[in-house]
């Protein structure tokens, strides 16, 4: 009978749809290299200590893999068992997040951590219900004002890393100009962003400023995919930039779409969160990355010692939270590594400020004042003066970025609607 065949056809095709969502790599445990300097550990983590980590996707997403790797590194470093570090993968940004957090509390977790912006309201809901458990949320904006003592936010001064990645990109542009491949005014970069959100705008601006720091004639176009993970759209955006004669591309989105398109076209690419040298051996230049290990280590140790967790924590180059992946010598311009080391030490000493108001203009004018929307409210009221001592003080009033301007030299950063 036809009916049965139809059942089979429908069910089989649908089960494929269900299965496709997660493919590749089995979950064998890999020990990751310990990035943070090993100091003699005196803190003993009790055997009954547990931390639960809620992830939006699994390790197939570079964003989530970055958290998984960091947590596993800290687990190894502190000698915790698999039962003490519990991962909950593929948790959507809805009621499931609250339920998963509650479930982790039931399992005895002293800390529950969530990695995605949309998890925040559900983490706050759970934090109110379980006052004896610490809830830590990456990229969130509410901890400072929510007045929930066991609820915390964390982020990193990733704009420092983006700036360094920009310096590497600028060096590459200079090399192209010197070799006569492009003229100075043809040094145009393309940047693929997920959403026109402060985090993305802050990141793309610092990347551009890094490039401009070494290559003053650089310009940059921005395209948004309106998705954190869309291989097709990211690839198309990269190809569009290449057609527009962009000579270097970077992105803030989580798929391999752009790096692959760049490799096919032979255009240098700067990535984020993971090294893409494997995807583009001839074009991947460098990546900036947030290393979450210092934060995980901090919260685990503090809770084990009975100390409090910072309400809103932001780590930078100093803390080892912002790191650069391996520089691809095959792609990088000569002298890049030395230049990066030099700029890095200047960032640490404070000699170079990423958002130095002398280094950029908005609509032809130098910025002397900017009210940022730091305190979350429904009307997005600008509430805090962010310019201080002639630089924009990103991530100082709140860990989550709030830089929201389109500076001269960049086009398409803030969509007009």
């Amino acid at each position, binding site marked *: 009978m036809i009916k049965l065949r139809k059942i089979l056809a429908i069910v089989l095709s649908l089960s494929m749809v269900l299965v496709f969502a997660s493919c590749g790599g089995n979950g064998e445990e890999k020990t990751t290299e310990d990035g943070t300097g090993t100091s003699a550990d005196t803190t003993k983590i009790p055997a009954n200590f547990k931390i639960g980590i809620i992830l939006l996707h699994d390790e197939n997403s570079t964003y989530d893999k970055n958290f998984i790797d960091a947590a596993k590194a800290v687990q190894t470093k502190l000698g915790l068992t698999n039962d003490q570090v519990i991962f909950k993968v593929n948790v959507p940004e809805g009621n499931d997040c609250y339920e998963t957090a509650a479930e982790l509390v039931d399992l005895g977790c002293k800390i529950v951590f969530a990695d995605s912006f949309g998890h925040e309201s559900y983490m706050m809901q759970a934090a109110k219900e379980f006052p004896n458990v610490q809830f830590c949320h990456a990229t969130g904006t509410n901890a400072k004002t929510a007045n929930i003592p066991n609820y915390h936010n964390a982020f990193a001064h990733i704009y420092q890393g983006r700036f360094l990645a920009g310096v590497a990109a600028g060096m590459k542009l200079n090399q192209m100009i010197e070799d006569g491949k492009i003229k100075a005014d043809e040094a145009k970069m393309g940047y693929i962003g997920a959403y026109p959100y*402060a985090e993305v705008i802050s990141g793309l601006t610092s990347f551009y400023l890094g490039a401009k720091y070494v290559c003053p004639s650089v310009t940059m176009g921005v395209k948004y995919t309106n998705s954190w993970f869309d291989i097709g759209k990211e690839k198309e955006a990269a190809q569009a930039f290449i057609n527009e004669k962009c000579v270097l591309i970077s992105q803030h989105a989580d798929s391999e779409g752009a790096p692959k398109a760049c490799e096919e076209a032979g255009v240098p690419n700067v990535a984020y969160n993971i090294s893409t040298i494997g995807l583009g051996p001839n074009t991947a230049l460098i990546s900036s990355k947030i290393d979450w290990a210092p934060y995980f280590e901090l919260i685990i140790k503090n809770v084990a010692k009975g100390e409090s967790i910072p309400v809103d924590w932001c780590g930078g180059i100093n803390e080892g939270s912002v790191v650069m992946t391996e520089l691809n010598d095959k792609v990088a311009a000569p002298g890049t590594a030395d230049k990066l080391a030099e700029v890095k030490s200047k960032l640490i000493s404070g000699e170079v400020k990423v958002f130095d108001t002398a280094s950029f203009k908005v609509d032809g004018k130098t910025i002397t004042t900017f009210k940022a929307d730091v305190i979350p409210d429904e009307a997005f009221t600008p509430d805090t003066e962010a310019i201080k001592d002639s630089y924009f003080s990103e991530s100082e009033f709140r860990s989550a970025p709030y830089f929201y301007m389109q500076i001269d030299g960049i086009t398409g950063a803030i969509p007009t609607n």
Partner: protein
Amino acid sequence: MKNRETMHEPLIRISKKDSMQWYKSWAVRTAAIALALILCAFVIILLTGYSPIEVYKAVFAGSFGSERKVWLTFQKVAMLLCISLAVTPAFKMRFWNIGAEGQVLAGALATSACMIYLGSKLPPAALIPIMAAASIAAGLIWCFIPAFFKANFKTNETLFTLMMNYVAVQAVAYCIILWENPKGSNSVGIINPSSHFGWLPSLFNQKYLLNILIVFSVTVAMYIYLKYSKHGYEISVVGESENTAKYIGINVKKVILRTAALSGAICGLAGFLLVSGTDHTISTTTAGGQGFTAIIVSWLAKFNPIVMMLTSFLLIFLERGAGEIATVFRLNQSISEILSGIILFFIIGSEFFINYTVSFRKKNHKEGKK
């Protein structure tokens, strides 16, 4: 090869069986599940090296590990069942409504809009019925549009309902930009987090109980509607043969429109329950692919709402078990989805052996012919 006549007789012949006694058919199904579990055990040992017993324990714990998990399991079953109930009358009528996803989103969008714009203006006694009515209407319209074109212009409803999913997703994406908090984050967050305006109330301190009871009553109503009402009869006749339906004087156009409207309305209700009773937010993934899973639930149960309680439970059980395996053994979800795939394959395969006989070519056939 010598005797050409034997070529007409294939080695394997498949023929329709008379209906099997219920206990025999259930024995076949049980055997299928047992075989599936044995095969899964081999897969687990070969691919992961873990003990299959431990893995099965984790699967069970995924749904029943704690009281909280049990409630959430039933809540998830209720949601999937609700959407499955919605697609059932349409499928029974051979109206391929694969747009449940979009219809649920349309309902969810209507609910969220009411919560955001009317939340503080109306008392709960007025707000919640308005929200329910608005979302049912939204789901209904979303399914009625393709049905209208099918009934009047013979358009293909499979493509049309599918396309309507994308329209719904884009409509939600647009509204998220209007409502997102903070700007550019693409996230609406919990709606009315402190005032709880437009949130479905908890019954006996159980926040999912009302959802579950609503879906249970819809299930019973749907069973009666399909089995005992004149409408239900008309749906099956139209589904079997439109010409027969016309011949016995059924207004086919009217039945198509009415049934599609019903299908969309229940999807809208599911959207309402998902936003008002569960997530209290909206995103493009609010329906979460359940509009498609619902089709499996409905077909597996052969459109019987009571059996659908079992099949939706089975799928949720497998899904929650998959998540638990991923957590306990730190495997990614691929392995658990392989296991779910094997189990579903065996269950669907068993239906084949219940409905058909497989006979092999008899050895003495040649002699018989002489």
